[in-house]
C-alpha cells in the first residue's frame, strides 16, 4: 500500500538524517582533538554523503547514508610552543572543523528530520481518516 510505503521511505530519511547528526556530533566533539606528538595528523573533519537506492521490496526510492568521506581541507594552526604536538616553529595543527559550519549542518539535519517526521504524521493521518470512512 502506497501510504505505508511513504512511511517507510520517510523512515529511511529519518535514518539518514540521524546518521548525519552522528557525524556532526563526531566532528563537534573532536573539534579540539590533537595528537600527542608532532608529525601526526589531527582529527580530520568527516563529511556525510547520501545516496538514493531503489528498494525492491518497497518498489520505491529510499535514501541511505553513503560513505563517510574525509574533508581534505587544510588544518587550522595555533601557536602553542608548549604543546606536545607543536612543530619546530611552535605551531600546533588543529582539526579542520569549523564549529559554525557544523552548527549550520546540524540545523539543516534538524529541519530535514522534521520534514520527514511531518511526512510520517501526515501519512498516518491520511491512513487514519481512510479507515474512519469504513467505521462511520
Amino acid at each position, binding site marked *: *500500500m502506497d501510504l505505508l510505503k511513504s512511511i517507510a521511505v520517510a523512515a529511511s530519511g529519518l535514518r539518514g538524517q540521524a546518521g548525519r547528526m552522528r557525524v556532526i556530533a563526531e566532528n563537534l566533539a573532536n573539534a579540539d582533538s590533537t595528537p600527542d606528538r608532532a608529525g601526526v595528523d589531527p582529527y580530520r573533519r568527516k563529511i556525510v554523503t547520501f545516496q538514493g537506492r531503489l528498494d525492491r521490496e518497497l518498489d520505491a526510492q529510499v535514501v541511505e547514508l553513503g560513505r563517510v568521506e574525509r574533508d581534505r581541507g587544510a588544518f587550522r594552526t595555533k601557536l602553542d610552543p608548549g604543546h606536545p604536538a607543536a612543530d619546530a616553529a611552535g605551531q600546533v595543527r588543529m582539526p579542520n572543523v569549523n564549529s559554525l559550519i557544523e552548527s549550520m549542518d546540524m540545523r539543516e539535519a534538524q529541519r530535514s528530520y522534521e520534514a520527514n517526521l511531518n511526512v510520517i504524521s501526515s501519512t*498516518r493521518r491520511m491512513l487514519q481518516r481512510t479507515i474512519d470512512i469504513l467505521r462511520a
Partner: protein
Amino acid sequence: MTTSSFAAGAYASMQGIGGGGLLKKPASTGLAGGAATGMPDFSSLLGKALDSTTQAARAADVQTASVAAGRSDIVDVVTAVAESEAAIETLVAVRDRVIAAYEEIMRMPV
C-alpha cells in the same frame, strides 16, 4: 440500505489483506472477484486476516523489545507500530462492518 454492499466490499478487500500483508497490492478488491467461485469460507478468511494482523503486531512487539534492549533503531519501531496499527484498525473496522451486516440480516422478519 447500502450496509450489505458496504460489507461485501469490505469483505472482498479484507480477502486482499488476508492474502498477504498490507504492503502488497490487493489482488482483487472488486465485488465481482469476491462473488466468484472458489471463495474461502468465513472462518478461514477471518483466520487469514487475523494471522496477517497478528504478524504485524508481533513485528511491532519484536521491534519494541529490541529497542528496549538497546539493539535496534527507534525509527524501525515507529514504522512497525504504524503498520500494525493500520492493520489492526482496518481489521476492527471490517469486523464491525461484517457484524453490522450480519445483525441486519438476523433482524430480517422471516
